[in-house]
């Protein structure tokens, strides 16, 4: 199972990168969202996938062995990563919205205010 989902993570990564290199800022944003999905899946896979196990100690038991639970640490890491990337994605969305408003463009090639195209050079 790890094998297949590793390939899935790679596929989503490739799509995300392709979108991130697009000219339209909206598609760049989509790329960001896909990239975080791919990365989260990747961490999940790296923590090894398990079938039929849960990261819960059932009532009546006080402890379990490592072979009896799904890897809780990778799940905690992924959860943290989801929340963090969610927060940052929201910021990026607002940033793109504001950029479109103030700079009047959604074209990544048009972002030339902070680094103007022709800078004169002089010793």
């Amino acid at each position, binding site marked *: 199972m790890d094998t297949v989902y590793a390939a899935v993570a790679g596929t989503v990564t490739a799509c995300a990168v392709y979108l991130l290199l697009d000219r339209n800022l909206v598609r760049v944003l989509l790329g960001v969202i896909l990239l975080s999905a791919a990365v989260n899946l*990747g961490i999940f896979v790296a923590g090894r996938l398990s079938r039929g196990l849960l990261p819960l100690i059932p009532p009546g038991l006080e402890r379990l062995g490592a072979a009896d639970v799904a890897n809780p640490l990778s799940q905690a890491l992924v959860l943290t990563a989801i929340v963090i990337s969610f927060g940052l994605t929201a910021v990026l969305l607002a940033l793109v919205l504001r950029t479109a408003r103030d700079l009047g463009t959604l074209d990544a090639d048009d972002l030339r205010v902070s680094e103007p195209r022709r800078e004169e050079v002089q010793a």
Partner: protein
Amino acid sequence: MTAWLPVLPVVAPLLGAALAAVARRQVPAQRLIALVATSTQLAAAGVLLAEVWRRGPIALHVGGWPAPFGIVFAVDLLGATMAVITGVIGTAVAVYARADADAGAERDGFHPLYLALLAGVAGAFLTGDLFNLYVWFEVMLAAAIGLLLVGTRPAQLDGTLKYALLNLIGTTFFLVALGWLYGLTGTLNMADLHLRVPAVENRGAVLATAMLLLVAFGTKSAVFPLFFWLPASYHTPLASVSAVFAGLLTKVGVYALLRVFTLVFAGEGTAIQTALCWIAGATMVTGVLGAAAQQDVRRILSFHIVSQIGYMVLGLALYTPLGMVGAIFYVVHHIVVKANLFLVGGVAERLADGGDLRRMGGLYRRDGLLAVLFAVPAASLAGLPPLSGFWAKLLLLQASLAAGRWALAATALVVGLLTLYSMTKIWNEAFWKDPPEPLPAGRVSGRSRALLLGPIAALAAVTVAIGLWTQPFVALAERGAATLLDPAAYVAAVRGVAP
């Protein structure tokens, strides 16, 4: 005291940020909170440094859980020194910001953002857990994006978008590498990784992960060829924001390189070392050349950050004790000098109503004190003795010559000369030359002047102090470097056993 001291430099500004957010409508309360929080951070870091100097590395097992199961804050001399510098810069810029951040900026949330940034930086320097490091990187990123936007003009939006995207991708690379490293070793604690990484069977995968971390931290540190986000954004926000970014943020990346490539990947000598050497040389050169093509003061300074990062990476790349000493000393020196230069640049821009050297001029006559306060950090950056920059460059020169790296030594010297050229160009154009058109009257009132020039003078004094009373700082760097190259005491502290 170990129960809370290592974490106080993080908790104080973090709590301050939260409270400042709660006090959203009461700006005076926010200012007070900021003042208290930054001074507490500085004081706590100072005490922490004294403790670590006395006793060796200290570990705080957060939540009382043993490492590597819980998160540990592991403080050695390098980390404590970085925390102290954070406190110094944080407090200095906070004072400067009182005159620099206008009402609009404070309404936008300058104070909680600034304090959160300081908390993230301190957390990165003090943590002993790799995933926790990632979390603090993200805290810094979120706060940094906010600070870049405070005051929002169109150039800021452009710069921030580039900054946000490129840095987000950088931290994403870090996260990816983290996942792989965890998958290979089963642990996230850096001291534990030091013990586990050498035992992993698949050396190729370990090396690939290490290279990815090099790319990730390299993006954060603005090395070649990953530094684009820096000159694209550092000249756009408020001067105080530029200063704290220039001083601290890239150095967190350098610190991560120093820590990870001595503690976690200590054994991976040759391939990584070769990569680092090339990166160091290329970074030094491209940075200083980039600066030579600019006409705006803050853009020149931004490119110089890149160039100077090259020097720090050089110290790491040599992997000799003297090289490490040089790297640590350089980091400390550069943080102070670079932040100071940006602060001075901010005042100069106010006086000249803009940062373009072609339009500026006459500042020497107009404000002699500012001229002196520019000359000190500028000379230090260029490596003129007897200031801190000279000793930093001397250490690295000695280290590279002793290690037989002639090309790198020559590069370091030539880049140093070009840095001198660049700083003198700013002096010539902004201070000595008369402006092509008469400049408007300055926008700097008496009280503002004290708030703006006070921190600058204090930081300049630090630079001079390091230059003249050099021995304590070199000794500090020496002991710090020793722990980096031989982390036995650090690992023992984390594991809770005697070394």
